[in-house]
């Protein structure tokens, strides 16, 4: 195949599509790659299920809520880890979301021109910090701080609530929640920021023109417009929190039970898997670990699809026309 032969093209009669070898090769190879991605996801699912098979056949669905991890008696269950994942992830989401929305509002509506760019970059930098570094900081800086100052204070003032039980050694559920909050904050903030920026200026002007304050305009026009996207952002943040293994493993202590207190050590599905990396004594134990990974896989897929569904529904509700 020589270089583009323009005169040749004009001399050749217009022959329409001629399937060239090069086209076939490119499309074929690229198509195989695309197919490969589908195969990869299928392979991941299959391998995880295969690894979990022993445990699934032994315990069935009750594994999900059984609170036990007893290698001696071969009794395994994900219950306490599921509890830990739920508490830490939703706790982080609860704290991170309002802060993230505040940051997003600041960056889209309130910040003076000069600050906007740098602060946006800073928030995105926060997202780029690896989880092992956040975990290190959480373990060696945050945990001692919380243990010495915050946890006792919270316990003494709010101790009547079982949530704020006796303070522990710093590595506990509360520290994990703070660490996860820091990690998912940038995700929710940057998606929300883009959403707020995408609200058409004419809508905002229409509201302000009626004589409303900026906050009233935000509440009445910006938030409803961005509602779907912010929900999707929250869900993505939740998904991130659920899947985070390293940072949580470094700060949550190691506890295979359920406790009502935030200040007791705990564990999550992902962190426990990471903590057992040196290997497990029995095949059933290993398979149970992989069963937990399967749970995580299922959660992540649900989260992903849910976020996509919400975004699509919100886009449709923006209304016809325009």
């Amino acid at each position, binding site marked *: *195949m020589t270089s*583009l*032969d323009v005169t040749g*093209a004009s001399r050749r009669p217009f022959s329409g599509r001629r399937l*060239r070898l*090069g*086209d076939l090769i490119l499309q074929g190879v*690229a*198509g195989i*790659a*695309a197919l*490969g*991605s589908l195969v990869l*996801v299928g*392979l*991941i699912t299959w391998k*995880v299920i295969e*690894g979990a098979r022993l445990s699934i056949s032994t315990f069935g669905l009750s594994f999900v809520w059984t609170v036990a991890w007893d290698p001696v008696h071969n009794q395994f269950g994900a219950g306490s880890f599921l509890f830990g994942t739920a508490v830490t992830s939703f706790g982080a989401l609860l704290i991170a979301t309002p*802060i*993230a*929305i*505040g*940051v997003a*509002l*600041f960056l889209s509506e*309130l*910040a003076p021109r000069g600050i906007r760019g740098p*602060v946006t970059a*800073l928030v995105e930098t*926060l997202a*780029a*910090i*690896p*989880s*092992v*570094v956040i975990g*290190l*900081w959480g373990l*060696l*800086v945050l945990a001692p701080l919380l243990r010495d100052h915050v946890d006792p204070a919270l316990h003494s003032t709010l101790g009547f609530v079982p949530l704020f039980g006796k303070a522990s050694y710093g590595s506990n559920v509360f520290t994990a929640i703070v660490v996860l909050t*820091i990690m998912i*904050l*940038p995700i929710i903030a940057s998606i929300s920021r883009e959403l707020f920026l995408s609200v058409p200026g004419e809508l905002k002007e229409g509201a302000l023109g009626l004589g409303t*304050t900026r*906050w*009233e305009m935000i509440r009445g026009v910006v938030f409803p417009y961005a509602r779907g996207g912010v929900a999707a952002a929250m869900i*993505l943040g939740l*998904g991130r929190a*659920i*899947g*985070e*293994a*390293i940072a949580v493993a470094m700060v949550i202590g190691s506890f295979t039970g359920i406790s009502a207190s935030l200040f007791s050590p705990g564990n999550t599905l992902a962190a426990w*898997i*990471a903590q057992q*990396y040196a290997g497990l004594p029995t095949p059933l134990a290993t398979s149970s670990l992989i069963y937990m990974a399967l749970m*995580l896989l299922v959660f*992540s*897929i649900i989260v992903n699809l849910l976020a*996509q569904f919400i975004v699509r529904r919100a886009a449709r509700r923006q209304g016809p026309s325009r």
Partner: protein
Amino acid sequence: MSAADVGVLQRPNDRLRRRRAVNRVMELVAWLAAVLAVVILGVVIFSVARRGASALSLDFLTKPQAPFVPTAPQGLANAFAGTFIIVGLAALMALPFGVLIAIYVNEFAPKGIRNVVTLTLDVLAGVPAIVIGIFVYGLLVVGHHQSGYAGAFALGVLMLPLVSRSTIEVLALVPDSLREAALGVGAPRWRTTVGVVLPQTIGGVLTGATLAVARVAGETAPLLLVCSLVAPGTHYNPSQPLMTVPLAIYELSDSPEPADHARAWAAALVLILFILVVSLAARWLATRSRRKMAQAGR
């Protein structure tokens, strides 16, 4: 309440004062949130910088870990080497694969298939790193042994959706008129794609690849499961497990020795600096390629 007093601007009554107060409070809350985010970032980076810098030394960068010879100068050279090799291998695997997928999705795929593949990529991107670790463990480690290749493969799987997504975006930016112009003079499809469209996107592709590298350089979870039983000393053979920087940080943090903690901070500092430099490089590449595309569009 009557209309605004005709002829006079509404005098600040209680209601207007209250609304203004609420507005000011919410503004303050937003400012506080932003300050909080910046402070958190500042505190983390400051901690890493301060504690890491004190342990940073030439030895640290050039000497390997020597856990059985405590008197020898301790460094993390083996971890730096291992990360370099494993991340390099991962990029080698993920880049061509990811670009090909993007080419298929953007240039050849009918709409239905395009949606399926992009959905698949999104799902893949959402799978937690630890689960990818379990997958690679089951695929490559069970019945065999841990290796740098397995680690590279795991990181490659993590990089794949990132590379694909950013390449798809860049490909979509290339105007159709360019493709039509090439096809119009009789160039075949494959030539158009490889010779005309792809060169336009090199900047964007490199940017995406660079950002993906920055992302996985700090990944620990999959490596824990497939590339963590590392022999002491510096090794370069990926068929055996190699030490990596994030793994070193993880293990050192577990130790009770303050010296180990110091080295963990230093490693964290190097890691963050690496990621920062790489991200800035990616951003510079992005701006440069955007400028070139704008000129080409003229």
